């Protein structure tokens, strides 16, 4: 080996915060090359991809609608990730939240009560937490790996939603098609800006990010979770109850995912469908890491991820770019971030001794 990889004695603090920016810039440069290879003018392509989608009020509304479940779930997951509790199950927790919330929207379909929306959000949160309590229980009692349990429960939850929408929760007047009735107005989040789809739920997501920030940065439990993530044994010696932290870590993810599920069905969807999420639960994992598990960073990275989704559509419409470009950008972003993180913790060095022998 001419090049030797060795750990850095002290990873740079500054670079840890800069690495998402570096990754984003490298992603853009790679995008430039890809656009040129596709025979598109890179300046036009950039405009179509990153400016066009948000050049009017409607577009900004769409960006926030798309980003809000990502930032909400990303913050919830970050609480657990800080303590090295790996909840991969937000997609399933979101689906269960949607089932719980949607059920109440359907049974109160004829009512105009103001209580319906708060009730939906509350039971959606409970649903997400219930689903997350399964891996928490298995982890604390049997020490079952939460990565596997949460991941597998995603499939169960998504199929459970499909089953209910094909059966008991199906619209009886819908010719047997698998979807529920359209929710009544009382079960729909009010639109805030006329002419957009920007709804009240976006502010709930903002509130969730702020609450997450207070919890992680200011509370003692948040501090305990950070310590447990860095050194679990040290945390135990210090008297922190690790089992309690497991419960908190998983339930917070379930809580935010459950609420996000209700915000989707009571927001832009307006009914229960066999699938209520285009993979927000998984994308939120990327969002949490790109945001450095910090609510402020998660807020920004959720906006970036949302813009990549919208840009993909706009690129198709304006420049006939293939729809796969969105996936390529997301992959590039994560790839460069992981590479940057690697270089923060390790350095590469030319192997001098070998050279001297030669």
């Amino acid at each position, binding site marked *: 080996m001419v090049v030797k990889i060795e750990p850095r004695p002290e990873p740079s603090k500054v670079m840890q915060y800069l690495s998402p920016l570096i990754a984003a810039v490298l992603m853009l440069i790679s995008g430039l090359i890809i656009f040129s290879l596709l025979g598109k003018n890179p300046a036009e392509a950039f405009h179509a991809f990153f400016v066009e989608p948000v050049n009017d009020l409607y577009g900004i509304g769409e960006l926030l609608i798309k980003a809000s479940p990502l930032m909400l779930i990303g913050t919830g997951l970050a609480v657990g990730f800080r303590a090295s509790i790996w909840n991969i199950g937000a997609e399933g927790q979101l689906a269960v939240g949607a089932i719980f919330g949607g059920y109440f929207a359907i049974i109160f379909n004829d009512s105009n009560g103001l209580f319906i929306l708060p009730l939906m959000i509350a039971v959606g949160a409970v649903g997400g937490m219930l689903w997350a309590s399964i891996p928490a229980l298995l982890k604390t009692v049997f020490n079952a790996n939460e990565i596997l349990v949460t991941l597998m429960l995603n499939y169960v939850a998504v199929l459970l939603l*499909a089953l209910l929408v094909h059966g008991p929760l199906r619209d009886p007047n819908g010719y047997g098609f*698998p979807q529920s009735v359209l929710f009544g107005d009382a079960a729909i989040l009010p639109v805030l800006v006329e002419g957009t789809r920007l709804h009240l739920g976006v502010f709930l997501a903002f509130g969730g990010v702020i609450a997450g920030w207070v919890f992680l940065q200011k509370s003692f439990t948040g501090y305990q979770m950070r310590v447990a993530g860095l050194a679990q044994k040290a945390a135990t010696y210090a008297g922190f109850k690790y089992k309690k932290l497991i419960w908190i870590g998983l339930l917070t993810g379930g809580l935010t995912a459950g609420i996000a599920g209700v915000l989707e069905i009571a927001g832009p969807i307006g009914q229960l469908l066999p699938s209520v999420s285009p993979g927000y639960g998984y994308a939120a994992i990327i969002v949490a890491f790109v945001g450095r598990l910090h609510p402020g960073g998660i807020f920004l990275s959720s906006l970036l991820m949302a813009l990549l989704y919208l840009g993909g559509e706009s690129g198709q419409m304006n420049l006939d770019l293939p729809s796969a470009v969105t996936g390529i950008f997301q992959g590039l972003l994560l790839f460069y971030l992981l590479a940057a993180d690697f270089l923060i913790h390790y350095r590469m060095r030319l192997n001098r001794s070998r050279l001297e022998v030669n």
Partner: protein
Amino acid sequence: MAIGRKNVLSVFVVLLCVAGLSLTASAADKLKIGFVYISPIGDAGWTYQHDLGRLAMEKNLGDKVETKYIENVPEGPEAERVIRDLAKSGYDLIFTTSFGYMNPTLKVDKMFPKKRFEHSTGYKTAKNVGTYMCRFYEGRYLTGIVAGKMTESNTLGYVAAFPIPEVIRGINAFTLGAKSVNPDIKVKVIWVNSWFDPGKEREASEALIAQGADVITHHTDSTAPTLTAEEKGVYAIAYHSDMSKYGPKAHLTAATHVYGDFYTRTAQAVLDNTWKPEQVWSGIKEGSIELAPMNPVVPADVVALVEKTRKGIIDGSVHPFQGPIKDQSGKIVVEAGKTLSDKELLGMGYYVEGVLGKIPK
């Protein structure tokens, strides 16, 4: 200096106006038509057939139309945004080609009262929203005849997506077609709960073959069932597209959808200002359903029988759902001398005699 600057500015403004005028002039001449696709176009399947229709329309109408498609658009909130963006960008006629686009299409219609929308496979219409669908079951009935004649085990395998009336109707029509030439036919169904999942479709096909099925058909989108049949040495009847190149030996024929004429007619109607929202349900007679070329292994008398039946469907003497038809319990659901109405067909929720298993609830 100041005057010079002003001059430059006014020249610029004039140029802009001219550019704007010429833009609106050319836009007024051409009808801009948008298509929203559920999956990438690929080289076979549901979206591929819609795109063939789009290209045929472009060819027929030449420079009177300009088209644009957005592929891989998930059903739900994304669909509403894409449809809205098309409407906002000056597309006056928009085809939305998946069932789950129904409510998003209606929502966008409310925001753009001057735009025209055509939604495929749905049941809700509005002042500016029409629907269109093919009588897929007519093609199914014909391919059922081929399957019924070619099977030796008398067991046919059916890979199905979701238990909705459209799919159940297809299973029943296929079964009735096969039973019309071979009363001992049994049809086994495996539900994969996905419109497009090559892995699951392959597993389902393998399971059906292992259970004795020697002709496989599918109401899903991929080429996996045909590929699997080719590998295992049984026959396949494809759906949506001619998939013969994926199974030269296995592929007997396919029930394919043809949208070119419908798209051309609809665009012409919008150009002529005669468009109205309708619920179009067109079949073999209107050229919306065709069979792919028959594999040479299909005997000439079977080809002739299929052709005779096809003509019968066109002139109305044959209806796939012609009584007497019994359901699985042996109860008569369509009496002799009667045929099912469109409304009954659209809400079909039971299996006919000959289909094994139960519809998942």
